[in-house]
């Protein structure tokens, strides 16, 4: 079974440009999460999709960030326009459906390293 994949693995852009990150979850996983780790700090939650719906987007930093999950499969996270403080590692995680199950694990992708110059 393929794991969670993310593309690109690295991205270097200039301030003001646009970048789109992609996450492909494990097939059949209804839940998809985005997290971000800024250099040297803790990993922070950005948002949570259940299928194609945004369940929780309380962690999105501002309106320069737009996440989509069309059709409930892969997800994209677009940053427009990028700022210096957006640099970090963006992780995606997927999880099976939660109904009736307490112990579902989140499976992480390798992350996308974003550097904004």
């Amino acid at each position, binding site marked *: 079974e393929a*794991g*969670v994949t993310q593309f690109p693995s690295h991205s270097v852009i200039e301030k003001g440009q646009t970048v789109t990150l992609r996450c492909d979850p494990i097939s059949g996983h209804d*839940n998809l*999460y985005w*997290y971000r780790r800024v250099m*040297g*700090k*803790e*990993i*922070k*939650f950005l948002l*949570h999709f259940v299928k194609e719906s945004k*369940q*929780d987007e*309380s*962690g999105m930093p501002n309106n320069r960030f737009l996440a989509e999950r069309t059709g409930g499969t892969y997800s994209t996270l677009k940053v427009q326009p990028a700022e210096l403080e957006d640099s970090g590692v963006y*992780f995606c*995680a997927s*999880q099976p459906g*939660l*109904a009736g199950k*307490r*112990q579902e*694990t*989140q*499976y*992480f*992708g*390798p*992350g996308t390293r974003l550097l904004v110059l």
Partner: protein
Amino acid sequence: AQTVTQSQPEMSVQEAETVTLSCTYDTSESDYYLFWYKQPPSRQMILVIRQEAYKQQNATENRFSVNFQKAAKSFSLKISDSQLGDPAMYFCAYRSARGVVQGAQKLVFGQGTRLTINP
């Protein structure tokens, strides 16, 4: 809001020895999960071990075990017989057990501890 604190930015251990990574957390909830994740260099993060707060018995997975002290809100990870494949960033994480309530499924992470092995 819940918080997780890992007070050791870096730890080092001799090969075959035992090391303990510290984690404390703060929550007003009584039912929750605690996790240790491992991220090797340039590789993806994987789950090492998981503990449910309502279980008194400490979780164990091969060489990895935890010391869960619910009253003290402490959740340390012990790695026995350290091996050359163990170097990684180790993250402690918390998740509510409030089911499908909005916001309950997200993981709250600590800052991470970088573990290195001395051959």
